[in-house]
């Protein structure tokens, strides 16, 4: 057919009409009707385990879909449009922000989640439970904090260097700061703490109470907040912090990576998920690192969940998928493949995870990390915790890098938290 003006216009008219009729059709509620769509971030689940699940639940049409980076944005858009939703979705450590809207999700208790509850760390299980008992999240992984340090450099300076000895030398943050000051005299120009934000974040992670009491009552000037703030300032004033730019943002922490390679970062407190980054960006330091208990005790930072949306037509099958993916039997594989720290204590005793690790000079780090994981105290998290924490750590960064007066910074942090909570209608 030759393209005449008439045929072109007819085609264009038909096209517009087709658009109109397509728009009047209802969009599917789930992303792939008839299948079980699973949304997860890259590295959020172990690919091998997901591939096995796909084999196993092929009859149910399991359809894993890796959403890069912006999973939360996509989920919010799908939820508010009630279209193209996943059947199963990953939720981050901000799971508390979904508790008020649990109507969009399925209560995992309806499928017998209570029967497997005891296989998981109680504090982690609780973090996925809404205040009214609604079981929203099924635990994927956690981030127990520990002290990572350079065994070779500690020994070279004549300081305790074996994990048990180091742990005994730095039971508290104050002891750690004191240890750091003495060590820095021997090894000038190096640092034992990444930045003030690390001290604040991991100090808060160790506290059984955060910013809110259950029932979302704001605790205001709680002593634990002031304690974490003061600790961060002490570390800064003692010259222990390196203060790298963007050291907490994956991908931009170039300075920190360089410091790992050059041995300028002698030690740091971090959640276990840092190990993958450490191995990847400082492969030449293999064998020189060790891990011991964090000063100040056990704490957790980060960790994710799987949840089932209410729109899933076969939630019982979806639950079977979730339960299998995150079963105590599969968790060791996820840890070995993707560094997802097990949420089931049964996995801590898996011989594969207790094997000596060459990167840590033959140390079996699982024993240290598992101990920390078991000791974490259950805490109440509000939907605003992350925003509040950011307000404080931003101001600490201003003190550390922009020379802001600490008193002024504290006042500003409190004011910005107050503004945030007022705007959210909490205060």
């Amino acid at each position, binding site marked *: 057919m030759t393209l005449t003006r008439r045929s072109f216009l007819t085609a264009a008219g038909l096209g517009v009409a087709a658009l109109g009729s397509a728009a009047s059709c209802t969009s599917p509620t789930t992303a792939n009707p008839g299948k079980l769509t699973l949304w997860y971030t890259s590295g959020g689940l172990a690919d091998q385990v997901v591939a096995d699940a796909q084999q196993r639940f092929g009859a149910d049409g399991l359809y894993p879909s890796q959403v890069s980076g912006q999973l939360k944005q996509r989920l919010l858009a799908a939820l508010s449009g009630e279209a193209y939703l996943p059947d199963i979705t990953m939720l981050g450590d901000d799971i508390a*922000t979904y508790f008020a809207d649990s109507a969009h999700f399925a209560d995992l208790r309806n499928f017998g989640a209570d029967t497997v509850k005891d296989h998981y760390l109680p504090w982690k299980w609780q973090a996925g439970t809404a205040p009214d008992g609604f079981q929203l999240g099924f635990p994927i992984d956690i981030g127990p904090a520990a002290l990572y340090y350079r065994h070779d450099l500690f020994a070279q300076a004549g300081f305790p260097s074996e994990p048990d000895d180091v742990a005994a030398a730095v039971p508290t943050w104050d002891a750690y700061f004191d240890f750091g000051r003495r060590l820095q005299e021997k090894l000038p120009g190096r640092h034992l703490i990444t930045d003030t934000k690390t001290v604040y974040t991991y100090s808060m992670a160790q506290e059984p109470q955060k910013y809110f009491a259950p029932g979302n009552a704001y605790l205001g000037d709680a002593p634990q907040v002031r304690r974490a703030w003061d600790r961060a300032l002490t570390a800064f004033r003692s010259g222990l912090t390196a203060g790298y*730019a*963007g050291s907490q943002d994956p991908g931009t922490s*170039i300075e920190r990576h360089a410091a790992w390679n050059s041995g300028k970062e002698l030690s740091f407190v971090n959640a276990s998920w840092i190990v993958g980054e450490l191995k990847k960006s400082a492969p030449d330091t293999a064998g020189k690192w060790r891990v011991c208990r964090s000063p100040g005790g056990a704490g957790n930072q980060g960790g994710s969940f799987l949840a089932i949306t209410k729109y899933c037509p076969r939630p019982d099958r979806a639950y079977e998928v979730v339960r299998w993916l995150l079963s105590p039997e599969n968790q060791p594989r996820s840890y070995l493949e993707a560094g997802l720290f097990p949420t089931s204590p049964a996995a801590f005793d898996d011989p594969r995870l207790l094997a000596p690790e060459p990167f840590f000079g033959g140390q079996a780090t699982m024993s240290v990390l598992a101990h920390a994981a078991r000791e974490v105290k259950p805490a109440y998290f509000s939907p605003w915790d992350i925003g509040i924490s950011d307000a404080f750590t931003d101001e600490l960064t201003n003190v*550390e*890098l922009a020379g802001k007066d600490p008193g002024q910074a504290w006042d500003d942090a409190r004011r910005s938290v107050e503004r945030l909570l007022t705007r*959210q209608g909490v205060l």
Partner: protein
Amino acid sequence: MATLTRPATPVLTPVPRRRKRWRYLPQYLAVAPFFVLFAVFGLYPVLYSLFLALQRWDGVGPMKFVGLGNFEFLVTDPVFWDSIGNTLIIWVMSTIPMTALALLIAVGLHSSIRFKGVFRVAYFLPNVTSIVAMSLVFGSIFSSEFGILNWFFGLFGIDPVPWLTDPWAIRVAISIMILWRWVGYNAIIFLAGLQALPSDVYEAARVDGAGPVRTFFRITLPLLRPVLLFSVVMSAISGLQIFTESQILLGNRGGPDEAGMTMVLYFYNNAFVNNDFGYGAAIAWGIFVVVVLFAILNWRLIQRPGFLKAGR
């Protein structure tokens, strides 16, 4: 029945009303795609964001009407005012050196040198490079202790500059990135302007004995004024939207002292990181007001009598 009393036009046969209305249907259909798309993806979001600015909404739960509450917060929000300041500072710090440099390059390219085409392409390349890739590279360049820039400074005995941690150094770093990206683009625009200048004026100047420097300031620059103005307006448009450079270089929170927190980054941070969509929409409208003020300023500048004809 009034139509019957009027004498019928002799040449044109009267067209029935119904047919007349549909007569231009193909034409309307032909232009419809733009209007349909604009209504769906342009007009609707604009109006909806105004509605959203009056709500408190986390993106999932029910919206709560808060009236002008978000705007009340906006005008008393120190970070928002800082972000306007940062945006303007970064814009000025990037635009002025960029314009000067672009002019220099354009004059260089205009003179008879070899491999002209190669240079033109080379200068334009940064403009079409992915900003994200570029920002990652610049992250390494600006690294305080291990960056190539500080290493280079070290060769001349200059102390390392904390590019990504000092508030002012951050702004300079972002400005340098913008400069790098847009200098070639503007140089090509200026070059086009230069090539359009009449040669008789230059010949007259040469006859009168004017040197190259004098010619440049007395003839080239005044004649280029409309082109310069275009370039400043364009850079204002992109300058008010500075986002990616800051975000990739410093993260969502703008770095120490929020020195790299620009208006658009603050909007993004509130709407898409903190999921405070109502406040995000209010910030977007705040940005709109700033942009309108800028547009008025630009307009007044152009409307000034004799502005475009200056130099003649």
